[in-house]
């Protein structure tokens, strides 16, 4: 039995190959081709080996749990139908890789090409073997993205960029619809597992949500398979390199849409809605695609429209809802992939060797490249449905099915006529392709002298054409078993008995074929002169371009409407936005509390503590003062703000939160220093110029004042009533009970931080590190405003004073400034380091911990800067804060990862007490190491931010001096 783990390998292998390919040198053409070829070959081998497991309705499943609680799992599921697609993806993938080796020019960065191609292969494999609806949608989106990147491979080319963007917009939108459709389907069935969904067809078809689900899934499938009215992205995607067109836009990716329709055919098909929607789209696409293909002048354009037409044919077959039609659809998917991929490769060879794809310029190439011409002729024959080639068989099946009555409606009635007319069109463009390019007069004025391509560039086409012939001549013998496996996988017990023979006797389908062939040849004879010189695109329809409609729509929605909506609903000014935010918050709060009056506790002034009252009397004065002074007296506002902070710090001590008090006090210190350092770079503000003199400004201030009062009042009321309500049982009890027994510490707050909720703390210190680095990065290119660039006037005055005095040098006063305190500060350094160490070590059991200790340590460094100045410190001490940050982060992560070694989840902590001589038992928990990481990171981050700001004064002075000297010389 084939091992199901190999299934995961089939999906992962191409991605790994893609990563490797991306790492190779951009121009290593041979190495890249070997790598990609081996990956594709490996995938092909795995696929072929899997065949015995999937014959006769066998299914291989491999499940990796992801989020089982919500029905999400990475389920891979290979059945006969998915197997057929795997064969196409890896087989044609291998041929395309070989072909691309010769197609891509040495100037192209092939590493990117092969990396993306392999990644696409992986995404496509994942899509066909996905056994979970959501997983399927994810791989679906991935194919869209890699298709986008591959179409835009030559991104210096405008049409490549446009084509890529259009393809992504359309298939991406479809993918989004598909995702919603998948969620709906999963909700209807009650499971996202594909097997459950496939078994629940009857329930789905009778469900109320059937129609919306169908519409959404169809939106995904029809956009991907370029069905009308979403067909126009495919011709524009032809700006991609030809191997990409051959692989993605004929053989595999565009088949994803019809793959999906077939996959869910047992669930969704058979209803009138299905027939009308899918049939209408399919038949319209079939007719339009075939008709438009006749009038293309670009070889690849012709093939693109032909692909659209053939996909329309498959869609039409699927719409019929009869098992036999579904079997024919699967057969045609295989046939179309083989002949269309070989035709694309032939078109690529012609382009490569003759230098143009314009059919008005190409002619008579048969003598120059007889082998390629013969191959292309056979493949075109298959495309046109000539007997003894594979295209003929599935086309006959299509004709036969179109004659059957499926749903009595007009659409069903016209089906045979549509089929025959489209068949005739197919003959016209197939004949045109061959006749124009290979026959007629010798070509004149081609960019290059045409000749046969390198042997290996032709081999893939030869192989595909041989397959076309073998399947066409001996279908039952060659492809019968594989097709059976696919058909049984989709249809199960419904699987029809069908005959894969070439000759069915004289019947109506054969007559239709003959009519189509004759009419097609006649039409070509009549049209050939016109086609020789006409503009691109069919008459009358030429002007009506899907592309232009799409672009106009895009401009309207994403530019004009967006601008209008912004002008109408939004503003670029901050203040109105803040006002709206505050107002909405107030309104939402008030709404939530409305009518809650009955259940609220009674208001009482009982138990008012006078000392706390006085403390907050001062605190409130400070807060209001800070608000009042912040505009004109920044220093005063800063001091007042710190006063308010101090009041809350004392409240923390008072109200049983010693840890908070310590941290708040220390952070208060660094915040104040930080803002003091920043003050120098803000503009002077003159109190004389009062902007609030006019009426509008006064109104605005009154409104803001009302808002502020309401907000304060609201928060106060909310806080007050909540505090009076008894505390419901809280998760805090859990921590209290287990803090010592499981965390090994008596300071519960610290144990929560470094042990129970260590992962959250890790996130928080990461934020801190990012902020510190951002501050550092922002200041690296700092340019101050003109008026802040000079020395502060106090310093200038001091310097002038020094200059006048005979016994003083310039800068002496600055040096003497705070001489006594600065000596104290220098001597404080070891003491502060000791305090930090003390806070850190006792943290697990007593108030303290990594955060507080880190800030304390940073203050130690900071004091040295304050006492001695930046230069003085940096001559003596190298702090390297970025390394502190890095060390802290690494230590925290390493502690977390360390628990893996003992078989525990991330960040599980371990503790015991260690006896140290003279000191006694010391708690040594692994959480202490984590806390050390926190400590180190906090030190690094705080110091980095403060030093980065402090350095600006130095930098500006150095630059000023440099420009001074520059001016003098």
């Amino acid at each position, binding site marked *: 039995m084939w091992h199901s783990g190999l299934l995961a390998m089939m999906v992962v292998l191409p991605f790994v190959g893609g990563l490797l390919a991306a790492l190779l040198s951009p121009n290593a053409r041979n190495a890249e081709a070997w790598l990609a070829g081996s990956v594709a070959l490996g995938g092909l081998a795995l696929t072929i080996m899997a065949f015995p497991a999937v014959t006769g309705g066998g299914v291989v499943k491999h499940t990796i749990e992801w989020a089982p609680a919500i029905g999400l799992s990475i389920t891979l599921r290979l059945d006969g139908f998915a197997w057929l697609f795997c064969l196409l993806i890896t087989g044609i993938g291998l041929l395309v890789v070989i072909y691309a080796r010769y197609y891509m020019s040495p100037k192209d960065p092939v590493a990117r090409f092969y990396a993306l191609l392999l990644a696409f292969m992986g995404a496509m494999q994942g899509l066909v073997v996905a056994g979970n609806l959501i997983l399927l949608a994810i791989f679906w989106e991935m194919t869209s993205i890699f298709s986008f990147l591959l179409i835009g491979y030559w991104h210096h080319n405008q049409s490549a960029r446009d084509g890529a963007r259009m393809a992504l917009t359309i298939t991406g939108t479809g993918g989004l619809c598909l995702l919603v459709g998948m969620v709906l389907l999963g909700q209807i069935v009650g499971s996202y597992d594909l097997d459950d969904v496939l078994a629940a067809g009857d329930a789905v078809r009778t469900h109320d949500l059937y129609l919306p689900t169908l519409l959404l899934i169809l939106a995904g499938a029809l956009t991907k398979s370029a069905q009308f009215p979403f067909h126009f992205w495919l011709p524009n995607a032809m700006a991609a390199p030809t191997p990409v067109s051959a692989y993605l836009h004929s053989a595999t990716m565009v088949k994803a849409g019809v793959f999906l329709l077939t996959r869910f055919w047992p669930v969704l098909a058979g209803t009138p809605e299905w027939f009308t929607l899918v049939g209408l789209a399919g038949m319209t696409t079939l007719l339009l695609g075939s008709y438009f293909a006749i009038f293309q002048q670009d070889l690849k354009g012709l093939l693109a429209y032909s692909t659209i037409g053939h996909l329309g044919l498959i869609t039409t077959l699927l719409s019929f809802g009869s098992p036999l039609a579904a079997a024919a659809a699967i057969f045609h998917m295989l046939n179309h992939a083989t002949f269309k991929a070989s035709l694309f490769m032939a078109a690529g060879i012609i382009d490569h060797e003759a230098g143009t794809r314009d059919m008005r310029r190409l002619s008579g190439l048969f003598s120059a490249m007889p082998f390629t011409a013969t191959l292309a002729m056979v493949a075109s024959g298959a495309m046109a449905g000539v007997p003894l080639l594979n295209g003929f068989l599935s086309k006959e099946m299509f004709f036969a099915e179109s004659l059957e009555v499926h749903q009595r409606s007009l659409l069903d009635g016209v089906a045979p006529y549509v089929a025959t007319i489209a068949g005739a069109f197919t003959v016209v463009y197939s004949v045109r392709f061959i006749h124009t390019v290979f026959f007629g007069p010798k070509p004149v004025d081609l960019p290059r002298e045409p000749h046969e391509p390198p042997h290996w560039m032709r081999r893939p086409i030869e192989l595909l054409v041989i397959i076309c012939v073998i399947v066409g001549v001996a279908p039952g013998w060659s492809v019968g078993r594989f097709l059976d496996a696919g058909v049984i996988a989709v249809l199960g017990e419904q699987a029809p008995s069908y005959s894969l023979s070439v000759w069915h006797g004289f019947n109506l389908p054969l007559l239709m074929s003959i009519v189509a062939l004759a009419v097609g040849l006649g039409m070509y004879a009549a049209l050939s002169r016109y086609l020789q010189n006409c503009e691109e695109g069919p008459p009358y329809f030429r002007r009506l371009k899907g592309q232009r409609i799409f672009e106009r729509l895009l401009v309207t929605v994403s530019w004009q409407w967006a601008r209008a909506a912004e002008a109408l609903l939004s503003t670029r000014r901050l203040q109105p936005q803040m006002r709206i935010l505050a107002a909405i918050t107030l309104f939402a709060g008030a709404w939530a509390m409305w009518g809650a009056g009955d259940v609220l506790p009674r208001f009482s002034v009982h138990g008012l503590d006078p000392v706390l009252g006085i403390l907050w009397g001062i605190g409130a004065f400070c807060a209001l003062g800070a608000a009042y002074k*912040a505009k004109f007296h920044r220093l005063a506002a800063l001091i007042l703000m710190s006063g308010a902070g101090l009041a809350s710090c004392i409240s923390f001590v008072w109200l*049983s939160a010693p840890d908070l008090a310590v941290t708040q006090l220390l952070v208060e210190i660094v915040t104040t220093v930080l803002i003091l350092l920043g003050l120098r770079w803000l503009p002077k503000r003159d109190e004389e110029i009062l902007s609030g003199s006019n009426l509008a400004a006064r109104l605005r201030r009154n409104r803001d004042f009302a808002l502020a009062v309401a907000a304060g009042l609201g928060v106060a009321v909310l*806080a007050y009533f909540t*505090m009076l309500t008894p505390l419901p049982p809280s998760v*805090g009890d859990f921590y209290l009970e287990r803090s010592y027994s499981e965390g090994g510490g008596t300071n519960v707050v610290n144990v929560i931080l470094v042990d129970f909720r260590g992962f959250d703390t890790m996130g928080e210190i990461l934020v801190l590190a990012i*902020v510190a680095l951002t501050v550092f990065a922002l200041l690296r290119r700092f340019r101050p405003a003109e008026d802040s660039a000079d020395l502060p006037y106090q310093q200038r005055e001091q310097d002038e004073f020094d200059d006048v005095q005979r016994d003083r040098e310039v800068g002496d006063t600055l040096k003497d400034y705070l001489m006594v305190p600065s000596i104290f500060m220098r001597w404080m350094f070891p003491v502060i380091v000791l305090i930090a160490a003390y806070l850190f070590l006792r943290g697990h059991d007593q108030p303290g911990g990594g955060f507080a200790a880190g800030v304390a340590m940073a203050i130690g460094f900071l004091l040295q800067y304050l006492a001695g100045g930046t230069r003085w410190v940096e001559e003596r001490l190298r702090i390297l804060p970025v390394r502190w940050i890095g060390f802290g982060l690494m230590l925290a992560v390493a502690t977390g990862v360390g628990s893996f070694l003992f078989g525990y989840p991330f960040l599980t902590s371990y503790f015991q007490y260690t006896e140290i001589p003279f000191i006694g038992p010391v708690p040594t928990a692994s959480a202490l190491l984590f806390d050390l990481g926190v400590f180190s990171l906090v030190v690094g981050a705080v110091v980095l931010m403060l030093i980065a700001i402090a350095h600006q004064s130095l930098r500006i002075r150095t630059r000023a001096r440099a420009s001074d000297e520059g001016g003098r010389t």
Partner: protein
Amino acid sequence: MELVIAAAIGVLAGSGVWLILRPRTYQLVIGLALLSYAVNLFIFSMGRLRVNAPPVLEGSGAVDVTAYTDPLPQALVLTAIVISFATTALFLVVIIVARGLTGTDHVDGKEG
């Protein structure tokens, strides 16, 4: 006790809201700092106010959870204090860099 703390939260929040509606960047810095005091006190007070019951366990025996205040809001606020310092620093740097680039300390980068 509750009344005082609630009033304190209200005054801090009101002053903060007033300041963040002002046009000068420095007013915003001070306003956000005051708001963060208010929010920290508010979150802290959600564990209810207790005197003489710090969540530091005495001894290593069985734990009487009623003897201690709720440690969870404290743990939340502790990291919030440090993070609010970081955001204040970031904001301060943004406003001084913006002032250097635009030449004004108006919140919109232009007077008016």
